[in-house]
């Protein structure tokens, strides 16, 4: 039974289908991601990194950019407002 939704094959994050504990194995809805273990608790609906993402790199969900990484992100990390920044609409 999968616990993480991967919406598009090119996505660098998945979505938790349940509340995931820290140290849980990520069991994605696709078969090209293996061996990822959560580094923090991931609440239902929140994102977990499926791959290594470098500082400043675009983060991909729905097959498109949802913003850029602030700091390096390791596979299994919670990806949210603390390490993902929008590049749209903000004051310049």
């Amino acid at each position, binding site marked *: 039974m999968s616990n993480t939704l991967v919406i598009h094959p090119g996505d660098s994050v998945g979505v938790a289908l349940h509340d995931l504990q820290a140290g849980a194995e990520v069991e994605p809805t696709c078969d090209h991601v293996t061996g990822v273990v959560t580094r923090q608790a991931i609440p239902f*609906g929140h*994102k977990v990194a499926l791959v290594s993402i470098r500082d400043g790199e675009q983060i991909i969900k729905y097959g*498109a*950019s*949802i913003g850029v990484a602030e700091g390096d992100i390791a596979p299994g990390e919670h990806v949210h407002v603390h390490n993902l920044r*929008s*590049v*749209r*609409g903000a*004051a310049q």
Partner: protein
Amino acid sequence: MIADSFQGYQRADGSVGVRNLVAVIPTCGCAQHAAARIASLVDGAALLNYTGGCGETEGDIALATDLLAQYARHPNVIGTLVVSLGCETLNAHLLAEKAGKGTAPVELLTIQELGGTARTVTRGVELAHQMRRRAERLNRVACPVASLTIGLECGGSDATSGMAANPAMGAFSDLMVAQGARVVLAETSELLGAEHIMLDRAANPAVARELMETVQSCERWLKATGEDFMGKQPSPGNVRGGISTVEEKALGDVLKGGHSPFVQVLKYGQRATVAGLSFMDTPGNDPASVTGLVAAGCQVVTFTTGRGNPMGNAIAPVVKVTGNARTWARMGSDIDLDASTIISGQESVEEVGERLYELVLRVSSGMPSIAETLGHEEFSMLRLGPIY
């Protein structure tokens, strides 16, 4: 087999209503109380809770006059009372004239001329009752789904919106478009980051250009405020629900429009005239956006909500859908349809889209939506400028 008709009220101008309501329109905040009293005393009368009309910019007065007249000419409205104080900036006679260009009767009541609140309320109640009595003689007849205009809205979104409820609404939207209906997506500020998907589906270069200009103008305006966009888009509730950025929200939101080409770009409150999927430039603020969609002629608005939003509209049924099983369990008394079965794997996106289609036709045929049962009558206009 997909139904291609529902039971509606055929109007003299060829449009089809799904409700028979009397709209009661105050033309300024000072006339609001008398208008609200009239609406509360007549079954089937709906207050359009407009509070501008005085000390506003010419742009706002013109927008309000046109939008309120669109409500009076809306197929769900069988008569309108314009309740004026008598000294406000908004020209109540002009509004009544524009409103009267439809097929439904329009009456203008001026508080200063009638001699105060009590006399205005008495006269207004009498007129509203007359309008309602005439409506009682109207019967529903079979009408094609192609006579519907449907609004697509989302509010109180969370991660499940993009996973379940919005894709299901997209499947529903595709079914409506296949029948020749008009379907309207909205909320420009919530589409920053998904415009490439809309541009790819523009029916022609003119629509593509208008889509791009609409999004760019919205983003310029947001930047000009000098404020951080976070906390507004996405909202604090969106963030708690797992949405981190406006781009992520947008990529989930755009799924509501399904797979159809975009055929028309509408200004706020402008009437949708082309069969197929249109886009209206509205704020992400839900009551303001839904108010604009109904002005476009939407007889019904469909509304996805992950965290739970209770709202309705003064003259159009709002049908709500959630993809979040916890929200369905906690707040299902405000929501019409559960799409969380997509996440649990019990149903496909297409199956839930078909359920929504069937539900919208039942509501269009007279079944009250939950927001109507609970008495929701939200009306909130976009305001462009300052108040003097």
